[in-house]
């Protein structure tokens, strides 16, 4: 499988980026980290917008090495900036045509792209007559119209207010489903990333803290010693039934079934998120409880994460769940690898 190989070194006053990564060139890779951790700089290095002592190899193409530097316009990237950055003197169509005319490979289909991003009706408008969300959708369509081999997105939702974000998210989802090119999606909002990413890289102060498949990174303990509130389980589940009387949807994943109060979904597959703090553990299955979802599980790991808290990795079937309990509870229950417990799931969030 071809990869994007990065070896980035950049020294600025008060900031140092030192990252070696090999990112798969399939699906969506989320890059998560707090502000100022070097996420944007990493994207800029990939696109060739930042001069640095780095090497960048895209599959078998050398984009940057100590001996050579491929200029940004010769790298086949689509870049979506935090601010839409539309050309104010061109209409929406003009902006898309600007990119299409400069596409290196075969010509892209503007009509299909504008359909995908829901901007077909805006084609003759000027950018300053569009809402922030519309502008950002045009910016994404424009980046794709240049026929890139990879799409880089730098916090595309950061400039939008909460309502616009909600309106925008379905488009991100359809991008994830429709795009054949890899996407690198940078954000400091873990919920956004959990929603669309397949892989996850976590950056902290210029270096990589964790990387790998989204669900395994999000449940790995060493990542969350600094911020345990991030710990969560992400599950892709199948819709297997709907109980209209109670408004309950039955979702099946390879660890069992979950009942979720939600309107009947129109898709077959949904992505669920369970915060680690929303799972509690019991040694005996409780029957006199309001909690709907109780799954038998086996403790796979117990990790002290500080501040009197313990992160417990659970095996449910072949799925991993992560629960957060207090150190006191862990001692009282004598939690240890191999112990059979019951995971009581208090809340399930449906991401997409």
């Amino acid at each position, binding site marked *: 499988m071809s990869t994007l190989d990065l070896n980035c070194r950049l020294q600025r006053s008060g900031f140092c980026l030192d990252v070696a990564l090999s990112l798969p060139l399939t699906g969506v890779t989320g890059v998560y980290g707090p502000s100022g951790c070097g996420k944007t700089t990493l994207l800029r290095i990939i696109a*060739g*917008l930042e001069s640095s002592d780095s090497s960048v190899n895209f599959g078998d193409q050398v984009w940057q090495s100590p001996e050579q530097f491929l200029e940004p*316009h010769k*790298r086949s990237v689509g*870049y979506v900036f935090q*601010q839409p950055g539309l050309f104010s*003197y061109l209409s929406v169509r003009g902006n898309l045509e*600007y990119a299409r005319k*400069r596409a290196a490979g075969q010509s892209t289909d503007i009509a299909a792209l504008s359909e995908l991003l829901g901007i077909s009706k805006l084609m003759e408008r000027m950018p300053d007559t569009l809402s922030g969300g519309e502008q950002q959708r045009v910016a994404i369509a424009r980046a794709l119209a240049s026929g890139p081999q990879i799409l880089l997105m730098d916090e595309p939702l950061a400039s939008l207010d909460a309502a616009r974000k909600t309106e925008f998210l379905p488009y991100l989802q359809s991008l994830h489903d429709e795009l054949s090119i890899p996407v690198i999606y940078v954000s400091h909002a873990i919920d956004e990333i959990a929603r669309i990413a397949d892989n996850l890289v976590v950056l902290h102060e210029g270096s990589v803290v964790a990387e790998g498949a989204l669900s395994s990174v999000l449940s790995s303990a060493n990542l969350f010693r600094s911020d345990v509130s991030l710990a969560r389980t992400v599950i892709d589940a199948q819709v297997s039934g709907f109980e209209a009387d109670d408004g309950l949807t039955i979702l099946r994943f390879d660890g069992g079934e979950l009942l979720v109060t939600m309107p009947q979904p129109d898709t077959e597959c949904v992505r669920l998120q369970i915060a680690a703090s929303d799972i509690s553990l019991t040694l005996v299955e409780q029957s006199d409880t309001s909690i709907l979802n109780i799954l038998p599980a086996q403790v796979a790991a117990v990790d002290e994460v500080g501040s009197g808290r313990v992160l417990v990795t659970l095996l449910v079937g072949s799925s991993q769940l992560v629960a957060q309990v207090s150190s006191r509870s862990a001692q009282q229950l004598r939690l240890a690898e191999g112990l059979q417990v019951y995971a009581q799931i208090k809340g399930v969030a449906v991401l997409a």
Partner: protein
Amino acid sequence: MRIVAPDLEAILLTLRLAFISTLVLLVIGTPLAWWLARSRNRFSFIVDALVALPLVLPPTVLGFYLLISLGPQGLFSGFSLAFTFTGLVVGSVIYSLPFVVQPLRDAFTSIGDRPLEVAATLGASPSDRFFSVALPLARRGFLTAAVLAFAHTLGEFGVVLMIGGNIPGETRVASIAIYEHVETLNYGAAHFLSFGMLMISFGLLALVYATNRRAGVLRA
């Protein structure tokens, strides 16, 4: 008013000089302003200072050096540009250079890096980015620069006096003709020329401000 024909000639010559100088200034000033706006060379301030010199120098100083360097013993030995229309164009271009470079430079600077970076990631080469992004975004700067260059050349006197002299149809521009009329106490002709210049200058500036205002309304 028996000298109307030569005075009309002086006005037409002035307009021709201003028009040609403005064209030359835009051709020279655009790349210079672009370089000054984008350059991270730490010695670019020297070029900045050189371009701004005509703002502070007495026109006679500029005219004197031009006379020396453009004359028969000057840079192009045996070939004199002094007291020719071409010499006037050279003088005007140098004299009005800051009035073109500074607005263009400001316009280019205010574009910022982002639109150019966007264009680069969309596959536009550096020269493509200049023509397809920087020029359209700096269009108001070009209007300002062109009008200032034109108007400033119209009002030029000292440099012309030094290197152009007073040859009808060749170097006798309106400001020189007015000076000559006043010296010879021919106030009627001086009134005619002065009023002509006043109307042309006012008309030009009014046109620019009207255009700018309309553009402002459209942008809002």
